[in-house]
């Protein structure tokens, strides 16, 4: 069977209902991380899962809608970080469809790549809107330390984002991969956009 291009823009009804669930999963991840007082965000599990199931376009849409919802319900600055979420969805989808997230070892590597992409996209936004900080206590302490010892806001901001984002995205990708492996096959098949229908007559 020919695999449909991962860039197919036609959204099936299945992908359509997947995206709100992905946003919900992100929300619950953030909520649980807060309840358990984990020093991580863990708020992109849904985006990563959506990208694995539905491809880069679905992942990117899930990321964008995620931040629109955050903007409307918690913190209006989130609208701006939609760009980061879209990048996470796109990169995860591409990596997954090229077969780079097909074992635990590969998922580890993919997590680091996704974390670095998120860092590179977020840093200019952090500098523009927060003067370079991320709002995470540990990252911001490092930001202050680097800023005190060097003269570069960019370096400080980049390091601030790296120490927070890379471990976070690494765990997110590993958790999502674990969940993906545990999904019943008929659910995974639902999103497999091979349109070919075989009949007996």
């Amino acid at each position, binding site marked *: 069977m020919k695999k449909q291009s991962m860039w197919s823009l036609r959204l099936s009804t299945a992908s359509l209902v997947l995206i709100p669930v992905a*946003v919900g999963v992100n929300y619950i*991840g953030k909520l649980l991380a807060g309840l358990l007082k*984990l020093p991580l965000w863990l708020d992109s599990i849904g985006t990563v899962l959506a990208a694995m199931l539905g491809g880069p376009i679905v992942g990117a849409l899930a990321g964008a809608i995620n931040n629109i*919802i955050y903007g409307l319900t*918690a913190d209006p600055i989130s609208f701006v970080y939609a760009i980061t979420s879209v990048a996470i969805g796109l990169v995860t989808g591409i990596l997954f469809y090229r077969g780079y997230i097909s074992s635990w070892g590969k998922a580890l590597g993919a997590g680091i790549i996704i974390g670095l992409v998120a860092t590179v996209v977020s840093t200019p936004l952090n500098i523009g809107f927060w003067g370079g900080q991320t709002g995470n206590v540990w990252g911001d302490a490092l930001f202050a330390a680097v800023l005190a010892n060097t003269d570069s806001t960019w370096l400080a901001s980049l390091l601030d984002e790296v120490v927070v984002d890379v471990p976070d995205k690494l765990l997110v990708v590993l958790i999502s991969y*674990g969940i993906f492996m545990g999904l019943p096959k008929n659910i995974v098949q639902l999103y497999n956009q091979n349109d070919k229908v075989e009949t007996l007559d």
Partner: protein
Amino acid sequence: MKSISLYVNRNSFVHDVDPITKLIYIAFAILVPIIVPSFTISFICVGISLVLLAFAKVLRKTVPVFSFVFLVLITVVIIQGLFKPENETVLFQLGPITMYQEGLLFALTITLRVLTIVSAFMILVLTTKPSELVESLVRKGMSPSIGYMIVSVFQIIPEMMAAVSTITDAQRARGMETEGSFFVRFKAFLPLMGPVVLGALINTKERAMALEVRGFNSQVQKTYLYEEKTYAYSRLIRALLLLAIAGALVWRILS
């Protein structure tokens, strides 16, 4: 079930204004301080937003959002005041701590930028029902599929939260520990997250079928459940806001 939307139902003229006009107001409140970079203009924009929030009787509801934002802004003021690389002019000293003028001015710029954005968005978020906002955007040409996705999130999240509390109780009954070292707490994350996500994804199948049998994918022109609400002065307000943005641009180019 608890709604996650911040919308507050009150009776005020701010609530009556249509969502599109509020979106234009947000554009106005964010663009004008960028086009005309002066502290006075930024203060005026924050002021207008706060006055409108007060008229909408939702000022008290903004406190949680603003306090969250202020928490981060306080660290911005401290870090920039102490360590900004361009710091030269000493403003004051507190024992071994020296605050610098350049850093504090920069922190004030950041604070004002964040406040203008947050206060302008608060007007939209607190006085507009998400479904009304989405509906008016769909009327303006946004795809109904995107509209469905946004609106359904507001239904799905409370459902998932209910599932989370059921699962938390179940796992606690089985002896799961939710307090202790980082490793113990992280270990608790997986048995909580796993079942919620699996359950939600399995439910998508039914939801997809339910939409299919109701003809969600049909190409026929969609109709609306509610009649479009119009506000008498929205054209005038929109025109004034756009005029103000244009005026700021002209001022910037001429000076």
